[in-house]
């Protein structure tokens, strides 16, 4: 009998050589190769798993050079080897998680609908069709699910507004633009469990009476794009999508602002991705003027398990007004960087030190940016902050899409602040002056501060500028860029005062 061997095809695993490992293993005797997504333990990728009578046994990180040794050690039947990790579910990093949205990622063949069904897939959609659109929306509302794209708006309420809006055509748009550095949950799901997004969109379409769904995926994700299109073909062929609701994928073109929902809609319509003034809200007048639900990919992918297990099951996890689980993406300079899905409430310190194991470089942690380029930098002094929308907002931060980027003590925070301004200048849609011009001024002012030129006056100018951007910008690009800048200045003022030439003032 042949041995079933699992090797990830996730882009991060590929970047670490998974293809070569898989092809060599395929040629090694009687192997049935299954390419999966990643379990998200990236320091162990490529992580190879073999099916044994005791369950799947993992080895990692496996390189091509390890393979003959692994085979000699009898690893195809789970044999001992220094790279043997045991059962993946028993690894502390996985054992501590509550995997709901990511329940199948890294386990199933992403393009096998049979696998998907065998692991609980399509039960949520079946349940929705059983209870009807109104009750489906009620379950989503009761679950407490809030948007995982950044703003944290209650998903059920958004769906209800779109369902109530009048319109012959309605759209479901999945925001898979995932522009925040430090985030990769959308990518992992598209590559590792694409059917869960299709199921989530099918439920959303059914609930609000939509006629078409669009997935807007960033062009930087070629593997996700290919896997998702392949999954769509299968879903259509196998009749997963109901009559009258099709899904189409569109590819972005490298503009960060197109992750902002109204800019994304303009981009889908074929225009420059410029932010629209609200109102009207997309639920009333969205894509091509029709009522539109636009949700982040993780929001949509969390709906099937909610429908399947019930609102209470989901709502019972979490803290405060942040209910359910969040797939937190540990990134940057961390020893154990990876996907950690757990209930809200875990502290930043637990994530960085206990789960993430501190820095990869072995140096002390100095700063942690949470929530992407618009998110604040947190010093270790704030590590007791629980992962929760309100708790982060209370510290002038945001959880955004759940990215946690760790920096060691070599980081120059004035440089990070300047980068925030530079990023804003490069990615501004150009609609408002504080964002378009203010960000360029911001770079110049930080340059002068770092050069020690009229230090106090320029620091004051920077604060003023941030204030103007915060309150005079139409969207959160210009409006939130002050957070990384001001947090850097507040917590690491010494980095801005390296060249004290106050005599010049």
């Amino acid at each position, binding site marked *: 009998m042949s041995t079933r061997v699992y090797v990830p095809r996730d882009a*991060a695993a590929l970047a670490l050589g998974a293809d070569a490992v898989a092809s060599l293993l395929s040629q090694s005797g009687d192997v049935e190769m299954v390419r999966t997504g990643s379990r998200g333990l*990236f*320091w162990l*990728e490529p992580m190879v798993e073999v099916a044994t009578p005791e369950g799947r046994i993992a080895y990692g990180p496996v390189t091509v050079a390890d393979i003959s040794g692994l085979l000699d050690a009898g690893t195809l039947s789970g044999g001992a080897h220094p790279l043997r990790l045991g059962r993946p579910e028993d690894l502390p990093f996985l054992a501590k998680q509550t995997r709901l949205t990511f329940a199948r990622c890294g386990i199933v063949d992403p393009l096998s609908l049979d696998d998907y069904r065998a692991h609980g897939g399509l039960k949520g959609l079946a349940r929705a069709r059983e209870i009807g659109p109104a009750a489906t929306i009620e379950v989503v509302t009761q679950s407490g699910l809030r948007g995982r794209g950044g703003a944290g708006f209650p998903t059920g309420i958004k769906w209800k507004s779109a369902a109530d809006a009048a319109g012959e055509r309605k759209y479901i748009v999945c925001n898979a633009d995932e522009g925040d550095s430090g985030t990769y949950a*959308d990518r992992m799901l598209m590559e590792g469990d694409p059917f869960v997004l299709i199921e989530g969109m099918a439920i959303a379409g059914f609930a609000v009476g939509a006629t078409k769904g669009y997935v807007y995926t960033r062009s930087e994700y070629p593997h*996700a794009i290919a896997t998702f299109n392949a999954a769509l073909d299968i879903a259509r062929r196998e009749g997963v999508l109901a009559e009258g609701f099709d899904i189409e994928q569109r590819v972005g073109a490298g503009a960060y602002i197109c992750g902002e929902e109204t800019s994304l809609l303009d981009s889908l319509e074929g225009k420059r991705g410029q932010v629209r003034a609200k109102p009207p809200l997309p639920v009333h007048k969205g894509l091509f003027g029709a009522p539109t639900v636009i949700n982040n990919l993780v929001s949509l992918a969390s709906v099937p398990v909610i429908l399947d297990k019930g609102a209470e099951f989901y709502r019972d996890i979490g803290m405060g007004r942040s209910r359910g689980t969040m797939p937190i993406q540990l990134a940057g300079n961390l020893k154990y960087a990876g996907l950690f899905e757990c209930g809200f409430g875990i502290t930043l310190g637990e994530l960085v030190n206990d789960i993430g194991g501190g820095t990869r470089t072995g140096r002390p942690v100095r700063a942690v940016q949470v929530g992407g380029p618009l998110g604040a930098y947190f010093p270790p002094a704030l590590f007791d902050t629980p992962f929760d929308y309100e708790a982060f907002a209370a510290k002038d931060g945001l959880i955004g899409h759940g990215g946690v*980027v*760790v920096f060691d003590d070599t980081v120059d925070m004035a440089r990070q602040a300047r980068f925030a301004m530079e990023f804003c200048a490069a990615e501004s849609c150009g609609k408002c002056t504080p964002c378009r011009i203010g960000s360029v001024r911001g770079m110049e002012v930080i340059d002068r501060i770092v050069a020690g030129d009229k230090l106090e006056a320029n620091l004051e100018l920077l604060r003023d500028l941030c204030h103007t951007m915060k309150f005079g910008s139409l969207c959160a690009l210009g409006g939130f860029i002050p957070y990384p800048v001001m947090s850097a200045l507040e917590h690491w003022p010494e980095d801005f005062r390296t060249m004290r030439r106050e005599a010049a003032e």
Partner: protein
Amino acid sequence: MATYEAWSEARGAEIIAAHADQQGATLPILHALQDMFGCVPAQAVPMIARALNLTRAEVHGIVSFYHDFRSEPPGRHVLRLCRAEACQSLGADAVAAHVRRRLGVDWHGTTADGAVTLEPVFCFGLCAVGPAAMLDGAPLARMDDAKLDTLLERAR
């Protein structure tokens, strides 16, 4: 290594026609043109305008808004380096500086021999295995000067 066709009006017209009927056709058309020709050739702009009932200025405005679209075909190889925060935390800035020095080009530049075009990217979603890069579409993890030197040595 990607190979691109030289601009031909007939091929351009074919591509535009193949996508023009869908809703919001602009980006699909621009991507298809760039896949074929390695860039969005200036000659295609008036053709797109006609097909989509837009002005040339509007089409130009759209093309220039998006960072992805090139006005010239790239070199024989395209090296894209991530410049975003997660990769910065692992020294991406220094790696990028090394590559620019070695290739003798700045961002978006192509080496004099036409071998390599260097492009900045803000995030590949490889934030757990940075500094990340992509060479001719193949993702690369934990890049450093030496690894990139080896890759560039082979990219001719």
